[in-house]
């Protein structure tokens, strides 16, 4: 798998340089020769070996940003659905995989992981929203992206910062969740498409391990 191209989609949603650095470091430490590129060029996304859709901010704003790059949604769809390349959404990028987001006004997502993105409502009123900080993961099923990563209360931590969460229609799309006054979807996967609510690029050991798993993933 030497020299695979990894396209991190740039659609004006925050700083992607540090995300790219995290992918470069994970690749280096895993001994992979992946070529990481932050790009807003649909052609590069359509032909990439692996595609990453980041996202920071409000759902509707991110959707607008994505639509504002001519041909990008088509290019992503080509890579993920026709070429069946490994695809990773991060934070709002993961939420965009859902059918629709309910933040502010209902906004259509990509519909690749059927479900809604709804406000977090912890059962304990003492719990603050946003769900912000380091939480552990609870594994719902085995999946390549979690391989070798300790989960559970004594496992590694992932960094979350969000007020909305994806609730998949098919619970088998959930790979892992976190506990925050009830389950909060943390990692979803269906076929070659995966998404993390947390930020692997900010999650130190767990993050670098998950990114390396993504770079090796053969769905």
């Amino acid at each position, binding site marked *: 798998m030497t020299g695979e191209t990894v396209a991190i989609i740039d659609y004006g949603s925050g700083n992607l340089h540090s995300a790219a650095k995290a992918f470069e470091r994970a690749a280096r430490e895993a001994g992979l020769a992946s070529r990481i590129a932050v790009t807003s060029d649909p052609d590069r996304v359509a032909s990439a070996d692996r595609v990453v859709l980041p996202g*920071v901010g409000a759902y509707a704003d991110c959707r607008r940003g994505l639509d504002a790059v001519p041909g990008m949604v088509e290019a992503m769809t080509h890579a993920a659905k026709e070429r069946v390349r490994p695809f990773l959404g991060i934070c709002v990028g993961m939420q965009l995989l859902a059918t629709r987001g309910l933040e502010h006004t209902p906004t259509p997502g990509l519909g690749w992981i059927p479900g809604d993105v709804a406000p977090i409502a912890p059962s304990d009123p003492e719990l603050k929203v946003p769900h912000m*900080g380091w939480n552990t993961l609870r594994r719902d099923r085995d999946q390549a992206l979690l391989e070798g990563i300790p989960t559970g209360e004594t496992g590694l931590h992932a*960094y979350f910062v969000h*007020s909305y969460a994806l609730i998949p229609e098919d619970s088998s799309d959930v790979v892992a969740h976190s506990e*925050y006054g009830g389950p909060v979807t943390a990692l979803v996967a269906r076929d070659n498409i995966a998404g993390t609510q947390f930020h692997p*690029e900010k999650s*130190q050991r767990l993050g670098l391990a998950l990114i390396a798993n993504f770079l090796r993933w053969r769905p």
Partner: protein
Amino acid sequence: MLKTRIIPCLDVKDGRVVKGVQFLELRDAGDPVEAAKAYDAAGADELCFLDITASHEDRGTLLDVVSRTAEACFMPLTVGGGVRTVEDIRTLLLAGADKVSINTAAVKDPDFVAQAARKFGSQCIVVAIDAKRTSAPGEPAAWQIFTHGGRSPTGIDAIDFARTVTARGAGELLVTSMDRDGMRSGYDLALTRAIADAVSVPVIASGGVGGLDDFVAGVRDGGASAVLAASIFHFGQHTVAEAKAHMAAAGLAMRLDA
């Protein structure tokens, strides 16, 4: 479960850390990127840069520091100081900040918080509240907002202000007691608790840490979701790991795997 965060705070002026940092094996105690790397390795849960650069022209130096830090540390970074416009926020986020802390501009115009939250999402908008106790001993406790590094009173009640900016979309509040800042006598727990009880967003306790028990009290008695400190770490009095071990021993949920 979600863990309590420990956030070291670095005061940065013209691209250098101004309070001395004397811990671990820093090659250059004045280089904020080196300090950030050391805290990253030490298990800090987030890092805060407070830009106290006097002139606006030196902003470029801060942006360079932010981007070099973001490239070197895979942990969340909050940057504050002199944030006045939506463009300031965008520039910091594009440089690699994960969250931006707003202070004076939020006091002048709480709608600025609303604009910022709409544009970038509440999750990256922190409002820094600098408050001084204005009630006399024996009176019901009251605190007032101060700006410009504590020099300018505003007449605004701190608890009301916390509610106002949260309603406008602030995703987190950084609450600093001006009375306690640098005093090493502990956080103003009544202030921290009053604000934490008044809002639904996470509160970071700041100002006055003198020992490890102050961190425990900030969370248990103050209701803070995160604790911020500068000197106690910079001067090597305690490491982040010691602070975490102490808080965990006191029964608080801490991230110990870093």
